[in-house]
């Protein structure tokens, strides 16, 4: 390993670049429904995103990172020449980051997740052969890309129908909103905490029993609920606002709920998408630190998660806030009750996927969730062309990521293998 330190520095640089890209572009999508519904201001959204993206990445990002790092390719095949794996991972990172940059500039629909998976599969097939790819794992990842929007859509549909039944159709919607919204808040805290504790916390060194996890999650849920109730109490309701639109005050209550949901979404996004940047980085670091051994057992160093989280925040603060403003103001017809249903459904799906170690696209999941609310007749007009865009992104991004990573891999090999 002549270039060990150099490889790590290079991987850190590429990983940061990628994390920056995630923060700059993807976070805006994750926060779009929250700002669009008018429940949080852009400043609040950036603050929420900064705190919860980071905690999501740090606390629950380990599982997906493990998948990207060692779940897609069978590293044993490369045990003779660990450099191949290092070059490959470097190439994949660079390919995905460059592709994201180019595609975003051109306005093409891309997903960070799809680019990195495409890139890793691409280099593995060329460098290690067709059999080096764990095709059944890749298959399940690809399946999750279809399943996750559908699942988010179904949950969003169910959530919205429950909101309809319990609150909007009641004889006194405002009273029922004050009564039931705290329970939804409990749900937000509970689900998020539970999934995180079941799957995420192992790498931080905390091991909890099932009963412990449930009770702590319930406690967090109650905590969120109490904070929510306090905020709802502080709301001022103005009956005159209901004259033109009868649900103006009800939506105010949902606005409070939406803040909790926005936090959940940022957390979920951080937990899933940080892996796209740091998975390959972790792989490189693992190999170098074990002196060229293709170690499959080593734990994920915490500083890598920190690095990823930081990269996302930097991306968000340097560029992402602009995108957030654009996306948020583009969505004007989303009310907090809709925003809540869609965002919580998406956050739940994404956190579940993170816990299972599946890298999915947060954006696509959110689109699925919004469509679910639309199918419950909750949104005045949805543009179905976006569904076409999603299919396009699958078709474009996977091969593009693969081809670019092959290219970079060949270049890296040409540079480093001479010595």
């Amino acid at each position, binding site marked *: 390993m002549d270039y060990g330190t150099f490889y790590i520095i290079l991987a850190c640089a590429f990983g940061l670049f990628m994390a920056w890209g995630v923060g700059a572009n993807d976070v*805006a*999508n994750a926060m*779009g*429904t929250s700002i*669009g519904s008018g429940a949080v201001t852009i400043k609040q959204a950036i603050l929420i995103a900064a705190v919860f993206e980071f905690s999501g990445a740090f606390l629950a990002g380990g599982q997906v990172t493990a998948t990207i790092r060692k779940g897609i390719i069978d590293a044993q095949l490369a045990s003779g020449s660990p450099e191949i794996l290092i070059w490959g991972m470097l190439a994949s990172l660079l390919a995905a980051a460059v592709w994201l940059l180019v595609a*975003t*500039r*051109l*306005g*093409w*629909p891309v997903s960070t997740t799809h680019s990195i998976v495409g890139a890793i599969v691409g280099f593995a097939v060329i460098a290690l052969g067709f059999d080096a790819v764990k095709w059944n794992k890749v298959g399940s990842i690809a399946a999750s890309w279809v399943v996750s929007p559908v699942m988010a859509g179904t949950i969003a549909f169910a959530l*919205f*129908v429950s909101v*309809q*039944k319990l609150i*909007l*159709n*009641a*004889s006194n919607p405002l009273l029922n909103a004050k009564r039931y919204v705290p329970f939804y808040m409990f749900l937000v805290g509970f689900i998020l905490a539970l999934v995180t504790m079941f799957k995420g916390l192992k790498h931080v060194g905390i091991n909890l029993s099932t009963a412990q996890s449930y009770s702590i999650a319930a406690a967090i849920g109650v905590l969120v609920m109490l904070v929510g109730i306090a905020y709802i109490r502080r709301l001022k309701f103005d009956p005159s606002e209901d004259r033109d*639109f*009868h*649900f103006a005050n009800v939506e105010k209550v949902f606005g409070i709920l939406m803040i909790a949901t926005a936090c959940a979404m940022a957390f979920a996004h951080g937990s899933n998408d940080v892996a796209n940047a740091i998975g390959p980085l972790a792989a490189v670091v693992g190999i170098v630190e074990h002196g060229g051994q293709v170690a499959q057992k080593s734990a994920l160093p915490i500083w890598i998660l920190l690095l990823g989280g930081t990269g996302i925040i930097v991306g968000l603060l340097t560029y992402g806030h*602009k*995108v957030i403003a*654009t*996306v948020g103001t*583009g*969505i*004007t*017809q*989303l*009310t907090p*009750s809709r925003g809540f249903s869609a965002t919580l459904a998406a956050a739940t799906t994404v956190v579940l996927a993170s816990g299972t170690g599946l890298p999915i696209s947060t*954006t696509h999941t*959110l*689109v699925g969730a*919004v*469509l679910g609310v*639309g*199918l*419950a*007749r*909750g*949104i*005045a*007009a*949805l*543009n*179905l*062309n*976006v569904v076409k*865009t*999603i299919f396009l992104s699958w078709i474009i991004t996977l091969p593009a990521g693969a081809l670019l990573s092959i290219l970079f891999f060949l270049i890296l090999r040409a540079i480093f293998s001479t010595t």
Partner: protein
Amino acid sequence: MPPNMISSLFGRSPVKPLQNHMAAAHKCISQLIPFFDAVFENDWDKVAKLQKEISKLENEADELKRELRLHLPNSLLMPVSRRDLLEVLSMQDKIANKAKDIAGLITGRKMAFPEQIAPLLKEYVQRSVDASEQAGVAINEFDELVETGFSGREVKLVESMIEKLDEIESDNDRIQVQVRAEMFKLEKELPPIDVIFMYKIIDWIGELADRAQRVGSRMELMLAR
């Protein structure tokens, strides 16, 4: 900034434009009340002025109609069917169109209705305007319907509004019968060609209420799904 997947997911809502169009159509037809006042006062300058006004308002409604149609691509997923929405729009538009036709014909022929039917005819016009107003009330609930996802109490509320619209329309029918009976008594003393057109105007005023009612029944179709 390139187009973003999440923000491009949301199409332009047809609700507000539809409500605006109904408001424009109603504004147009409600001018018929001062218009008929002027007709019975034999103030033909004022009649001509009001006819221009009605025509202008009808054009404005047309403009709103075109706007809305242009923003309804096939790829939109809406809580109501595209067809029902366009039918409501077209019915609303026909209210304004008919008002314009009525004003145009009366102005063009300087039609002097017999003094005896003035109160009845004015009431008849008023009822048609009432029907259009009630259709507007129902259409104004559209955003609340979307908010509740077309279910529950809001649906019942709109249904009762549409019921009231139906009542106004049948009241209008009842007055139409009276107006015709009155005309029948007077028609022999009037120039025959004028009488033909007077009956035509009476028909058209009734059609105003019919069309307002159709706006309501199309809305009912949207509720039933």
